[in-house]
């Protein structure tokens, strides 16, 4: 009885590392498509990135089509 329950628990266990990896993909992807206004490229290109808004322009149509506020 106790053994079969043990099998069940380990079978259902979702690995923490997988959750972390997927949580990173979730947040990064959501930010890039839904909200970036130059923030990510500004890490490399500085203030200019907020003028160019490359990712905003590139993801622009999907941002609208998926229902995010865009501008």
């Amino acid at each position, binding site marked *: 009885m106790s053994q079969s329950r043990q099998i069940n628990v380990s079978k259902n266990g979702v690995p923490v590392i997988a959750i972390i990896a997927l949580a990173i993909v979730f*947040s990064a992807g*959501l930010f890039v*498509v839904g909200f970036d206004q130059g923030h990510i490229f500004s890490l490399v290109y500085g203030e200019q990135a907020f003028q160019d808004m490359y990712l905003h322009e590139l993801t622009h149509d999907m941002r609208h*089509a*998926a229902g995010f506020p865009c501008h």
Partner: protein
Amino acid sequence: MKTFLFVIIVIASGTAAGVVQGGMNLIFVEPSLDQAIGIENQHLFAKGEAEDNSEFWIKYDGYRIWQKSGQVLAGAILGASIGSLFGIVFAFSKNSLPGKTTVQKSLILAGIMWLTVYLIPFLKYPGNPPGVGESETVVLRGILYLTFIALSGFGALGFYKLSKKLKTKKLIAVAGYATFIGIAFIVMPQNHDPITLSMDLINSFRMMSAFTVSVYWISLGLFLGFLWNYYKPDKEISSSFH
């Protein structure tokens, strides 16, 4: 659970469903976007910020082609992102979800998440085509939208857990969630930005956009269900006991 396999099939199904959505958008949503951006261009000409000449249109057409291909790429990225959230929830809830097969279970979860993190937030804060919305309020609108999605998603999860703990019927959890989200719907501030385009254009944009997002959720449920059923990432330990 096979960690790597699990992550890969989750990201693959999300990306594939996002590409489907992006491709559908080219057919169904882009016409409304082109129309709305066309109106924006007319405003630019009227204000003298751009000149209505062939040079402008050559640049514009090239830009829009780039932007439309970016839309499909963005579909893949957003698809993988939302798909990752879906994969996490599915891994935890698979055994408690109704449905006989893995595909049925994942379609049911896709339906629940479509309703709670997409449709209900969309009814409160519907999307708009380009040209609607004050640029000063974009951050505020983004925060309101995300907050409402989070309230709805965590609300649904919270009431489900509560009903499981108290061993009440599922219907009571649904009623609890409905009351909670109904209150949030009324209490959360409205988007007061003026609608500056014709309601015809806005409505056809919203209908097409809701349609392709719904296609995304159905595809996501199907893809993850089939891949999960085929690769069975959660069966590692039980089979090693045989």
